[in-house]
């Protein structure tokens, strides 16, 4: 079953690619759609069936497709494992993935590269499922890299515009920097456990063989990979630019699934990370800092997709707070709920963008709530969910994270998290009010009609955003935290009285409501774009100049080094050495030429010298007796 789940999207991707390359101009809307979405419907069904089985108590599923490589002790199989963690992941990935595919069928309908798009999209699904279901870290890494590749391809989907390709390159390169760390972590892990097998089960069983320092290093390096993939400081700069891709791509890859791979990875290696709480704390701090940082930038952005991108980064920060503080199941819980409301937000944003004829600036929209009623309502629900207003999904998951932070005594992280929660509500509602409430601009506008397949998925996701939180209601609210019990991850156990939990929740909700009210005051009637008039604003609007900093720190020196090598090292030193040695012979030859001057008498002189030398040699060296 798992074999089918992973291979089917790859096969359909290959099939679509071949058909597409066969004739790139042909319009085969139905064929591509049925192939692309059909395969996803099948695997969604299969995943949900496995989920159901597992909820009934079925054991972890292991399947093997074939042996990948066997060289010495390096024995890796293309094998899949569905334990409770991965089954939760694939269930919502396939489910939301299918919805986004359906949505994309509407969004991309008129695009010339429709077949190509679905080929890439299915490739992404296959890679993501490979990542999640992999039985060993190497296969996970293969999936890890392949999602990066499909992300690259999809960000650069509109390749006519060089800026998009640039964004795609940026995404891939920063991901690769992360992967650089990741593969080092994997290699050290493998070397430390050489001969004990390399499946997750085997690593878990033998983790005690590795000493603490090595383990710390491995944990840190693996997290570098997560920083790249999940857009955390300092490798986050690609995510906002990645919004250059089509909106379904942003919804699927850069919101709901791929970017959460880092969180998943940490949860997958939870048996490793519980051994090294220091690294855990580091992860949580990076998460907290990223969450706040992204939220601040998001508050001053005006591109709807970039706001959502920064909010994704911010929410990912929360997830890393959770997994860093060893509350793995609340991290995964937030991944789960976040997938619903963030996908919904992106798809809503996509609908708005399409309706506004590809306008992305929120301050050029306004008062759309009458015309796009359905989009408005669903996005409102999603915004409530992300802001952590009960009873929507985000409240429970975010609350679980902040409670953990508070209860485990990391008050600084908790403070940042709580502040960010308020800020989140502010910038999300700022976006919502600017788009749907604020007075519209004077220009007459005719909205582009939205196909049904773009709106119905919104409704389903809105339902999900409303109710998804109930799977993780904890004791304080009368639930039994179903998801945490189901996942069976090695969570830290925190004890906090119900009353303090209520206090924390009250604080969060009131901060969120405050942010919401503030946003309504500022943007509810008349939305105005932030101007870089003060230094403070200028710095934030320019995203703290991080891009420029990276440019000067890394790209420019590399380019100048490259030029330096080309013009100086290669030409002057290496080639110079050769040319100088040639010059040496040339000069020597010039001297010899002088001897050969054609003057007979000079020759006679050489003759004389030669004979004399020979005679002297004969007499004094060899002792010839005359």
């Amino acid at each position, binding site marked *: 079953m798992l074999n089918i789940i992973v291979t089917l999207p790859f096969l359909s991707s290959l099939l679509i690619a071949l058909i597409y390359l066969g004739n790139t101009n042909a319009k085969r809307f139905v064929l591509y759609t049925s192939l692309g979405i059909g395969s996803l419907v099948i695997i969604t069904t299969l995943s949900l069936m496995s989920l159901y089985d597992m909820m009934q108590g079925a054991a972890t599923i292991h399947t093997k497709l074939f042996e990948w*490589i066997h060289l*010495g002790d390096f024995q890796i199989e293309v094998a899949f494992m569905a334990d409770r963690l991965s089954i939760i992941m694939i269930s919502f990935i396939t489910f939301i993935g299918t919805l986004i595919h359906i949505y994309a069928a509407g969004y991309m309908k008129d695009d010339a590269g429709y077949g*190509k798009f679905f080929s890439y999209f299915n490739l992404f699904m296959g890679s993501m499922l490979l990542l999640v279901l992999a039985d060993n870290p190497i296969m996970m890494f293969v999936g890890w890299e*392949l999602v990066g*590749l499909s992300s690259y391809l999809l960000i650069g989907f509109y390749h*006519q515009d060089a800026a998009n*390709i640039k964004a795609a390159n940026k995404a891939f390169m920063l991901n690769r920097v992360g992967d650089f760390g990741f593969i080092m972590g994997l290699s050290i892990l493998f070397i430390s456990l050489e001969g004990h097998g390399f499946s997750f089960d085997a690593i878990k069983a033998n983790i005690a063989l590795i000493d603490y320092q090595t383990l710390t290093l491995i944990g840190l390096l693996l997290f570098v990979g997560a920083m790249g993939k999940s857009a955390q400081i300092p490798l986050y700069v690609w995510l906002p630019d990645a919004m250059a891709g089509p909106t379904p791509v942003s919804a699927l890859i850069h919101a709901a699934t791929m970017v959460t791979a880092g969180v998943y990875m940490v949860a997958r290696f939870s048996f490793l990370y519980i051994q090294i709480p220091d690294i855990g704390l580091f992860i949580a701090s990076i998460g907290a800092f990223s969450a706040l940082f992204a939220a601040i930038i998001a508050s001053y952005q005006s591109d709807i997709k970039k706001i959502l991108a920064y909010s994704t980064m911010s929410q990912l920060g929360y997830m890393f707070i959770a997994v860093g503080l060893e509350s793995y199941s609340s991290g995964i819980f937030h991944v789960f709920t976040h997938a619903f409301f963030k996908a919904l937000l992106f798809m809503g944003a996509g609908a708005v963008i399409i309706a506004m004829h590809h306008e992305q600036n929120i301050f050029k929209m306004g008062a759309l709530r009458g015309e796009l009623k359905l989009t408005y309502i669903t996005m409102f629900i999603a915004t409530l969910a992300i802001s952590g207003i009960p009873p929507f999904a985000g409240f429970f998951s975010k609350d679980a994270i902040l409670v953990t932070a508070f209860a485990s005594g990391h008050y600084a992280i908790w403070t940042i998290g709580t502040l960010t929660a308020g800020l989140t509500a502010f910038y999300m509602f700022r976006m919502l009010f600017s788009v749907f409430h604020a007075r519209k601009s004077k220009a007459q506008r005719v909205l582009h009609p939205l196909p049904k397949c773009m709106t119905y998925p919104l409704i389903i996701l809105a339902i999900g955003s409303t109710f998804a939180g109930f799977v993780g209601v904890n004791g304080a609210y009368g639930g039994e935290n179903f998801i945490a019990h189901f996942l069976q991850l090695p969570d830290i156990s925190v004890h906090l009285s119900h009353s303090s939990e209520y206090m924390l929740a009250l604080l969060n909700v009131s901060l969120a409501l405050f942010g919401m009210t503030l946003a309504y005051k500022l943007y509810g009637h008349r939305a105005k774009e932030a101007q870089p008039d003060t230094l403070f604003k200028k710095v934030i609007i320019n995203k703290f100049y991080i891009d420029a900093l990276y440019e000067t720190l890394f790209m420019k020196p*590399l380019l100048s080094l490259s030029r330096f090598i*080309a013009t100086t090292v290669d030409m002057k030193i*290496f080639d110079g050495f050769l040319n100088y040695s040639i010059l040496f012979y040339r000069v020597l030859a010039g001297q010899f030429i002088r001897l050969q001057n054609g003057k007979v008498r000079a020759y006679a002189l050489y003759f004389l010298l030669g004979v004399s030398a020979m005679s002297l040699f004969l007499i004094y060296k060899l002792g010839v007796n005359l």
Partner: protein
Amino acid sequence: MNYHILSSIIFLPLLMAILLGVMRAPLKVLKAGAILSSLTTLLLVVRVIIDFNPKGGMQFMQNLPWIQNAGITYSVGLDALSLVLLTLIALLMPLLYLYMLKEHRKGYWYNMLLLQTGVTGAVLSLDLILFYLFWETMLLPIFVMIGKYGNGLRQYNSMKIVLMTILGSMSMLFSILYMGYIYFETTGAWSFSLYDLATIDLSTKSSIWLTAGFLLAFAIKIPLVGFHTWMAPAYGSAPTPAVVIMSAIMAKLGVYGIWRFGYGLFGGTLHYYTPTIITLALIGLLYYAIRAITEKNLRKMFAYSSGSHLSLIALGIFLSNIYAWGGSLYFIATHALASAGMFMMIGITYNRFRSVNIEQLGGIAQKAPIFTFFFAFFALCIAGLPGTGGFVAELLIIIGAFKSSFLVGILSATTMLSAMLYIFWMLQRTLFGASHNETKIADLTLKEIAMLTPLVVLLLLTGIMPSLFIPYLEPQLLGGF
């Protein structure tokens, strides 16, 4: 003379060339003859692969006396290491002939035939004098092809590659002759057979010098950093089939030489050079990659790319553990496939646009999707994306590097970053963006697709199921060299 399969594989192209030359064959016959010989050798190689016994060590041996009073024998044989290269040669030749099907200069075809004999012979010979002979033979057609059929500063560049390579060859020849002499002194008989020479005891000092003689030849051929200034000009000037052979086969022969003769003759002394070579290889890995970033000529860019990856291969050999060895050997094969594909694509680019300058390209993706697919595929293969063979090889080398030392591990893992530095920027400027000219560009023809598809399929196969290929190599790797 008895029929012997390896000798047939070596000499078939040469005999074909002589036959055609004596006949003064017209162009059509010449083409047919060359293609026939390449297909026949491919079939023979398939036969060899089927009969090959991975655990059998050196096999298919043939020993014939040749110049008896000097102890020079004609001796050839095959093991897993040479099998990899032999297969690559046999596979690439028909594809290259397909590539140059429209080529009307006869000398071109003769040179290719001679080249095939040269490289095949070098891969298979077990006598050092014989090896040296083939080693020089393969340089000759390259010299002619660059000097006569190349472009740019072709004559200067062909002189440069030949002079620098000969510098190495001479030092190697000196080492070979000196070893033969020592063998004569100790046993009273002349011999240049690899196995005979491996038995002699050398003093440490002379062994170090003799190793240096061999290593210089191989370092120039690979080329390691510092010995590389012939590379970019030669690649830039050479016609595509010659570039493909240089990058896919001849550069690998340098590595092969270290493996076969370095380990075969000086297993003990090689450790003396290990730190030096590892340092050079690690520098090369990054040096070439950084150099490639601002290179504007695609051929030269991938020349540097080739140098960067070959440094990694050389690194793998000197790390002396099974993962790095396996990775290197695997990389020899997969990089040959990828770079062959890449250089063919660059050749096709040149045919289409009359330019391989990145600044004059751009926007190809809009006009020629199949072209774009193949171009990007090979470029990504070189960047070592999973699902292609290069990934497996790089992974193995990185693991091997970490096994040997932490620092080397980190530095060799930069291969994940190094290729990416130039590949993606190059793709951006070459394939994507707005197109510079409005002329219509023909997409790949069926012939071109047919020529590239085997490479794509093999690259995917090596990436997705390495277990199909590794068993051929593993016994020898476990046995050491």
